[in-house]
Every structure is written in C-alpha cells, then in structure tokens.
C-alpha cells in the first residue's frame, strides 16, 4: 500500500529519465492467490453472409412486386410486400444499408481512389435501377423501407396542383446533386444524416430527426409520400430510368372507358389525364418550341456551371478540414479558446497550419470541379423539365405516368376493365 504510493510519487521523475521509451509505467503484478485475469470481450458484428441474404431478399421482393404489379394486378399482394419491407428492411435491418444511401457509396467509390465499396452496397444501388429499366419503379412500390412506412400512413390524400408538384419535383435533383458532390469530396453522407425515418425504424436516434420523421408521417396523412415525391434523390434517378422501362404497370387491361376511377384511387396524382383539347397538336409550332428549348439547354448548363463555380467556397465549408483551416486563418485568436475541441486537438497534434491549409486547398479544388458540374447538371435538369412540357401527341386515355407512378397498384383495384 505504502510503496505503491511512493512509486506513484516517483513516477514523473522515472518517466523523465526513461524518456518516451515505451514501457508499462506500472508493471502487471504477479498475483499470489489464484486470480484469473479476465479477457476483454469482443462481441461480433453481423456476419457478411447476412448482407448477401439482404440482397437476396431485395431480389425476391422486387421480382414479386413486378409480378403483382404487371401480371397478377394485385394491390393486396403489394400491400403485403410493403408491410414485409417495412418490417424486414426497416425494423429488423434498421434501415441500413438502403439503396437511397448507396448512391453516396457509389459516388465516393467513383471519385476517391482510396475508398473501397462493399459488393452488397453496389448491388443495392444497381438492382433496383435495373428492375426499373424493365418494370418501372417497383422498388418504390414495395421494397423501399422509407416508401413503405409512408405508404402505410396515407389517409386522405389531397390533390396538389400540377405547377406546384412540378416545381417541387426539382428538389430531388438538387438533393441528388448535392449528395453526390458531398459524398464524392468525402465531406459527408447527407442522405443518411438527414434520413427522417431511420430513427423511427431504430426507435432510437437524434431527437430532431425523429421529430422530423413524425412530421413527415403526419404530413403524409394528407400529402401522400411527401419524402418520396419531393425529396428522395434515388426516386429522382428511378423517375428517369422508369420513363424508359420496357414494361410498366398499366391501369386498364383492355381499353380505357374513361370512368376516372383510377384518378380517385391514385394518391400521387401519377395518372395522366386525356387532353381536353381533342384537336391534333400543332406539330409545326411544337417542333419550333422543342428546338428552342433544346437550344436553351446548353445555355442553361453554362449558366448553371457559372453559378456553381462561384459557390464552391460556400459549399466546401461543410468539410471539417476546410472549415477548420478557414476558421484558424480568419480568427487566429481562437487558438487560445480552450473550449474549441477541434482547434485544441489540431494544435496538440503538432500539424502545422500550412499543412492544414494545403490539405484544405486540395479539398476546395475538388469542390471547385464538383460544383460547376453540379451547376451544369441542374441546368440540364431544368432544361429537360422545360422540354417535357412540349406536347407532340394528345393522350386519349387515363394511364399511369411512367416517371411518377410508384407501382403501388391502387388504381388496379379500382379499374373496372
């Protein structure tokens, strides 16, 4: 008892003599009684095999959804699958990894030579896209856990005017662009960080995000699937892919009888109306408009790229290194702020400010390239949205819009033919 205190007292002096030599300050005692030293436990993480089981489940759910939506025309089947996905991918697998978040893994793997993507993350990204090229957005219909929980919360959907729907429809592309930019520069995964439903599935998480999730669900009672339609970045990709799908859910089997029942059934306003104007569209003026809009696209892209290249400094501040370097350069007095953990840790690490600034500059350069590409991409999106307004053919039937229809199959139950 006493000698150990003496040793403790002498410790600093002994350390001073031994320098930085790596040795135990207090050697492990030799016990006289039969004391058994415990070993630290290491609970195993979930095995790799289980991840591939998830891929398998995803494949099965997607195949079944396609079958229910296109061949069997069964809303009940899709509803069952929705519940299954909410339970399996949501509550059991805790919502990670999901296809929406895998965009970022793919973007980072594409941009960062050091990042290694796991195969199942890549598969989670690819499989729903491939399915959408053949059967439409069947992933949104039943396999996506985020979509599933919102779908089950639809109560009395209101109609949103088309202009508002189309304007808000731009947000997913913006979100997608920003998510790819931030992931590719290694800043952060914003989709995962601001996923509103993962906290509900885990029944644990940052309080603010759980409140946001509940707010989305409550809003979803009246505005059907608000996250899917106006935020989801993966939905934006699927929207484009699904437009070119080989087959797609069709409201009627034989011939539309214009009963309009499907429009009451669809909570997402994803049914295209027949045009009231039955006259043949004036293709001459439409072609002129089409060419005009087509010519505007490069202009929009250049304008977007210009705006993008001006916003790199602002956007790059989300990266912790850039933020820290900027803070230290502009406010050197903060070095004495003992409460700022980041600055104190940086000072203690012995790295020079010049190294940090150089590193931050490399990241900012990446942001410079990335943000003008982002701007050009957004310009392209706006241009294509404008081109979509040009009508070449009048519709004479009620039919699901291949881009916005999520294959929930509600209309199929209502259609009498």
């Amino acid at each position: 008892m006493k000698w150990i205190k003496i040793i403790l007292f002498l410790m600093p002096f002994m350390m001073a003599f031994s320098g930085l030599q790596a040795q135990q300050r207090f050697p492990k005692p030799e016990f006289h009684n039969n004391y058994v030293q415990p070993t630290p436990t290491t609970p195993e993480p979930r095995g790799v095999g289980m991840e591939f089981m998830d891929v398998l489940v995803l494949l099965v759910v997607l195949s079944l959804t396609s079958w229910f939506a296109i061949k069997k025309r069964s809303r009940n089947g899709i509803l069952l699958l929705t519940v299954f996905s909410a339970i399996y991918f949501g509550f059991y697998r805790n919502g990670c990894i999901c296809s929406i978040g895998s965009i970022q893994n793919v973007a980072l793997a594409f941009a960062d030579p050091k990042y290694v993507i796991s195969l199942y993350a890549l598969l989670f990204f690819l499989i729903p896209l491939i399915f959408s090229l053949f059967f439409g957005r069947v992933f949104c219909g039943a396999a996506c856990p985020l979509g599933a929980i919102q779908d089950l919360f639809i109560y009395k959907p209101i109609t949103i005017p088309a202009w508002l729907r189309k304007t808000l429809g731009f947000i997913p592309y913006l979100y997608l662009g920003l998510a790819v930019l931030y992931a590719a520069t290694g800043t952060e995964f914003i989709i995962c960080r601001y996923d509103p439903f993962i906290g509900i599935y885990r029944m644990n998480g940052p309080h603010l995000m759980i409140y946001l999730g509940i707010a989305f669900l409550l809003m979803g009672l009246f505005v059907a699937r608000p996250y899917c339609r106006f935020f989801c970045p993966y939905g934006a990709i699927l929207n484009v892919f699904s437009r070119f799908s080989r087959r797609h859910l069709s409201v009627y089997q034989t011939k539309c009888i214009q009963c309009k029942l499907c429009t009451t059934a669809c909570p997402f306003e994803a049914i295209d109306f027949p045009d009231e104007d039955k006259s043949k569209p004036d293709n001459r003026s439409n072609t002129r408009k089409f060419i005009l809009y087509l010519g505007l696209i490069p202009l929009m892209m250049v304008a977007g790229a210009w705006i993008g290249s001006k916003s790199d400094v602002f956007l790059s501040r989300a990266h912790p290194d850039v933020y820290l370097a900027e803070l230290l350069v502009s406010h050197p007095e903060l070095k004495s702020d003992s409460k700022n953990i980041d600055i104190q840790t940086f000072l203690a690490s012995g790295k020079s400010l010049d190294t940090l600034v150089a590193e931050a500059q490399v990241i900012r350069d990446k942001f410079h390239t990335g943000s003008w590409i982002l701007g050009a991409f957004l310009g392209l999106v706006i241009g294509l949205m404008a081109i979509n307004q040009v009508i070449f053919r009048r519709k004479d039937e009620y039919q699901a819009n291949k881009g916005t229809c999520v294959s929930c199959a509600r209309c199929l139950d209502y259609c009498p033919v």
Partner: protein
Amino acid sequence: MKRKTFINNSGRLILMGGLVYLTGSIILKRKVSASGKYVWQIDPFKCTQCGRCATQCVRDLSAVKCVHAYQLCGYCDLCGGYFKPNTHKLNTGAESQLCPTGALKRKYVEEPFFEYTIDEKLCNACGKCVKGCGSFGNGSLHLQIRHNLCQNCNECSIARLCPSNAISRVPIEAAYQIKGDFKKPVITAPK
C-alpha cells in the same frame, strides 16, 4: 407508335450503358471488396478522448464503450481512471469516482491490487476514465465501438466529427483494436 418504341429502347440502352460504365469503372479500379465487410472502429492510439463519442452517436446511449485491456493494467490502488484527481480517500464513494455514471467497478483482488471492470450498461463513452488512465497510468482503459450495439451506419456520425480522425472503417476480420501491447497492432487498412 414506332418512334415512341425507338426512343424508349434507345433510352433504355443508353441508361444501361451508363450503369455498366459506372460499375465497370469501379470494378476495374479494384475498389469492390466482394467478401469483405467494413465496420467502424476507434484507433485507441489516435483517440484524444474529446468526449464526442458520448454525444454524437446516433444511439441515445452511445455504441462506444470503454474497454479494459487487462493485460496492460497495473491493478493500482490509486487508479487514475477510477478516482478523481486529488482524491484522498481511496474508497468506492461516489464523490471520489471519476466516472459520472458509476460504470467503472472496482474489486479487491489482493493487497494492494484492485481489478477494474466496466459495466457496459452504464458506460456512456465520455472517456473521462480513459483520459485519467492514459495521463497517469498504463493506458489500459480505452474506447472501442461495440459491434453488438453499433448500427454500422453508412457513415458513422461520430467519425464525421472526431477531431483526431481516430474512427475509420476496418475490415470485419479486425473488428476491434484492443490494446494488447504498447505497440500499435498492424491492421490492414482498407485499400
């Protein structure tokens, strides 16, 4: 209708080509690990015990816990991780304990040695004991991500804010970095 089918088919072909290019370029750079899975782990040699593990984890009670590498422990009576600095009475009274939740337990082994264990149900990963042990003792206490608790988020929210960049993805085979020795163990980092 012919034109529509043509546009449809060519659009599908272009998009498929895009996917193939994206996948191919990732696979050709050998950046896909087929068998491997990565998990998040703290490098105890980089950790500076800033205390963010306790607050930044997406879980209410952090998935990070203090781990005791018994092999390194000196079994001291006056444990820098257990007692507050300048504590005179070396007893288990709450006022003399450094751990805010009482997760660090002390058990008498034989004169003058004591064994210290961690009650993981109580540990909140504040790192106070780790700091105390590291600055005064052998550094046998250190923080580790416990994989029975970790959700293995796509991006660890603690890693994003870790000031010393101590948290990184490690291969599942080396899921823990428990200090067994003073030397930093060689870990095959993700390529």
